[in-house]
């Protein structure tokens, strides 16, 4: 076995520089250049003190003009902007979840989509009080899907999945009036509240931000995750590889990018089709290689071990290798820049969703009924495009790392069963994890999530924080682009246990896990909510008492804010490495970093110095331990 070594951010950057040289040769634009052109950013926007919700404005708040034309002060403006930001994120995740519900509704024994995990479907059906006895699995799937779809617009009641939280958490949600009603209603309520002449009280706006966030985490995202598992299988540990080196010079490279696994799963399915592989060989390639970018990559990596080419700020690099036959996208976090960029190469930029249409792309409308033929057409198009490659432009950075991924809550529990003692312990619970935490062998856990953001040197915050935390016996669960950064660096290689403190190292050895556990895509942060809920229940403590924090060190999107809000509202302190647009209002800042603690027992900490951010998380974890007396 060769010596294990992490890939450094410097090495990432060298690879990127080399790719940008190719870009310069063909006259391609790149985010690095666009950042320069956009800097410095507008101060009013950064502070959240600019309002454009009616045509009396735009208004901006300065010491000389402390109110907008309607009389709204800076706290109202910042609060409204923050709430709209949240609503955008919640809508995005939730629509993803809704699409999955529709896919489940379209599942059929002889259809494109089948139920791969009937056990999980039955479990959810029972949870929701749906009759399961003696029923055809597809009848059941359709009823569960329909019930799920009703969660988006039901006129009465709150979200069904809230019942999964510990009693104490449910009581908080009720007491504080943040228990989300129908998902779409919370988004439209947010839009209503932020209309000119509605809410301008910071407290009300932030409360709705939490509620809207919760409708995502415990509503849309959770359904997205659960039904994806039902349709495509619940993830279990699987070995894969990460970083640009997973692309293959002698094969047709298809990159799946976006979020919804309905598309990527089908592409993977057809890329494995012997007919397609034979066709690829006819075209002079050795085979078909599918790799992923962003959350769709996480989805197929978790379930199929499909390699991960890169995270958010790598998406242009994938094309810059000159070896990408097709980059197939659906929704969310897709740079519109990919259109013009792909035109500089032979790459086909294929958009598939009416939700995300972009200029300079080939639009192949993808839907559940025609998924098979759509996917086949896309794969075929990519294969045929292999011939158009310009060999002189091909350069794939020779860097990749091994990763073990697939740690769903179910898989984590199964893994923990392996360290139980049959004479003493029950299996099928998180008890071993709780024992490791309670005894102090593991000091705590950090959920590392979120995006890349050019405001932070890409991936450094993710990787440096993880290294620091694991060295301090803190286990990491990761998702989204944070998970991808870890995988690319090598932190999901089981050998990375050598970088851990003695406690975490021992745990990794005994359980045979890497120190950073990949829990999936951004909707899969709902898995983390279930994990902490179960951990709190088994430890007989409140979620807010657990030595657990969340961290989004390089966050960028509205989705990240929605996630942050539901994580905080679930009782988990959340640490941000990029400032949200709220500094203009002392009231909103105070609420988010302190005041909401009185409501939901957790709050935000914002710290741009990554080292200090890590120290603050470790300190919070130790504070929680001390309070618990463990």
């Amino acid at each position, binding site marked *: 076995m060769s010596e294990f070594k992490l890939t450094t951010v410097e090495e990432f950057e060298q690879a990127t520089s080399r790719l940008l040289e190719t870009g310069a040769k063909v006259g391609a634009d790149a985010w690095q250049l666009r950042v320069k052109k956009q800097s410095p950013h507008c101060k009013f926007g950064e502070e959240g003190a600019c309002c454009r919700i009616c045509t009396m404005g735009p208004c901006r708040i300065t010491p000389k003009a402390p109110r907008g034309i309607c009389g709204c002060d800076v706290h109202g403006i910042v609060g409204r902007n923050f709430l709209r930001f949240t609503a955008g994120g919640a809508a995005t995740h939730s629509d993803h979840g809704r699409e999955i519900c529709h896919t489940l509704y379209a599942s059929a024994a002889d259809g494109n989509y089948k139920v791969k995990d009937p056990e999980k479907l039955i479990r959810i059906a029972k949870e929701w009080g749906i009759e399961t006895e003696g029923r055809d699995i597809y009848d059941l799937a359709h009823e569960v899907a329909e019930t799920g779809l009703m969660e988006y617009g039901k006129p009465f009641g709150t979200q069904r999945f809230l019942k999964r939280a510990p009693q104490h958490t449910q009581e908080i949600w009720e007491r504080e009036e943040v228990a989300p009603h129908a998902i779409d209603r919370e988004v439209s309520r947010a839009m209503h509240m932020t209309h000119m002449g509605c809410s301008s009280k910071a407290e009300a706006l932030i409360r709705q931000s939490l509620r809207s966030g919760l409708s995502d985490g415990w509503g849309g995202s959770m359904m997205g995750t659960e039904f994806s598992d039902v349709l495509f299988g619940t993830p279990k540990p699987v070995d894969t590889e990460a970083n640009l080196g997973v692309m293959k010079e002698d094969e047709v490279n298809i990159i799946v990018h976006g979020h919804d696994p309905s598309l990527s799963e089908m592409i993977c399915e057809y890329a494995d089709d012997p007919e397609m592989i034979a066709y690829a060989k006819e075209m002079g390639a050795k085979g078909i290689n599918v790799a992923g970018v962003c959350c769709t990559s996480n989805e197929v990596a978790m379930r199929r071990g499909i390699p991960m080419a890169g995270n958010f700020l790598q998406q242009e690099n994938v094309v810059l290798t000159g070896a990408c036959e097709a980059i197939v996208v659906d929704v969310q976090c897709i740079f519109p820049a990919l259109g013009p960029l792909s035109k500089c190469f032979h790459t086909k930029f294929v958009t598939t969703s009416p939700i995300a249409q972009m200029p300079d792309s080939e639009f192949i409308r993808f839907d559940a009924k025609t998924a098979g033929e759509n996917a086949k057409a896309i794969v075929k198009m990519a294969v045929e495009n292999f011939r158009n490659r310009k060999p002189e432009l091909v350069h794939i950075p020779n860097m990749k790392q091994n990763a073990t991924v697939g740690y769903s809550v179910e898989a984590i529990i199964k893994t*923990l069963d392996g*360290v*139980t*003692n*049959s*004479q*003493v*312990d029950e299996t099928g619970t998180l008890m*071993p994890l709780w*024992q*490791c935490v*309670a*005894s*102090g*062998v593991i*000091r705590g856990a950090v959920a590392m999530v979120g995006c890349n953001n050019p405001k932070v040197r890409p991936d450094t915050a993710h990787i440096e924080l993880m290294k620091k935390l694991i060295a*301090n*016996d803190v286990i990491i669960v990761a998702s989204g682009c944070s998970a991808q950064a870890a995988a690319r660096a090598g932190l999901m290689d089981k050998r990375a246990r050598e970088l851990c*403190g*003695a*406690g975490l190292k*021992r745990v990794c050895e*005994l359980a045979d896990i890497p120190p950073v556990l990949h829990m999936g895509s951004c909707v899969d942060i709902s898995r983390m909510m279930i994990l902490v809920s179960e951990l709190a229940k088994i430890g007989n403590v409140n979620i807010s008492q657990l030595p657990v924090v969340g961290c989004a060190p390089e966050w960028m999107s509205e989705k990240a804010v929605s996630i942050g809000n539901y994580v905080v509202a679930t009782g988990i302190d959340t640490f941000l490495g990029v400032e949200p647009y709220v500094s203009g209002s002392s009231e909103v800042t105070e609420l988010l970093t302190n005041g909401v603690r009185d409501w939901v027992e957790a709050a935000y900490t914002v710290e741009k110095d990554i080292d200090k951010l890590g120290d603050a998380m470790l300190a919070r974890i*130790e504070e929680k*331990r001390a309070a618990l*007396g*463990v």
Partner: protein
Amino acid sequence: MTLFERVFGGNDAVYGLTEGAIDAAIAQHGEEKAVSFPNTAYALPCYYAVTGTKVTNLKELKEALGVVKTLMTRENKLNDVFMSGVATALCAEFIEAIKYIDGAQPYEEPCYGHLSDAVIRELGVPLVTGDIPGVAVILGSAPTAQEGVDLVKSYQAQGILVTLVGGIIDQCQELGYKTGANVRVIPLGKDVTSVIHVVSVAVRAGLIFGNLTPGDAGALMAYTKDRVPAFVNAFAPIDDVIVACGAGAIALGFPVITNDDNDVPPIPKSLIIQKDVSKFNATSLEARDIKIKITNIDIPVAFASAFEGEIIRRG
């Protein structure tokens, strides 16, 4: 009190005792007085294996205690707890070594105290080849003498080497249960510090058979974890000193099974609470991943390789 605090507390207590013992010995014998265990080429074997230094007299022992003190870091991390456990073990070795000054024979029948290199060479080969599938270290007093003896016998019948520390020795005597190296049941001593003599066996096995470099503590811990299939059975009540010793055992890769659930948080695969002493055997073997295939021969006496050295006396 957290488990880590208990380990640190136990370690501090043992350190205090050790310091007192060394100072008293120096006052009595002077600094130049030779310190050694009988019949070993490894000086104080544990200290030698961990640091690579051979202690020969009281002056050096006092210096060694200073080195041990540096292991006693007090952060709330498992590494610190492990090192505290190792420090506790080394202190125990020092206390035991002082007992042997001037060729004294501090242990008498049925206790063995320090075991010679010859015994280790004899036991070491079957240990690393798996003929002895495990080493049980039984500490304290079982709830009843019968339960204690039944446990000893159950291990013995599986060919496991059993070492005894504390009250369990009296319990065996009380019921007239035969002990001795020849039947692979070795009473070490009544003081908890005498547990070091079995640690010394594991450590010397590493030095003799594992070709470990003295001073390479990391390799030593890896060797014992991978190659020496030992485990500890500690009977309630366990005090902080035993908890600190337990941390040392866990650091070497040896799980601790106890029936004391008072202020002892369980740790998977490492510190296991088993209230039912009759299940100690099965729990321990599973915890240490010791798999023994037993063909039960239905005969009216116990049957195992452990009884091969048994001597039948007249009468």
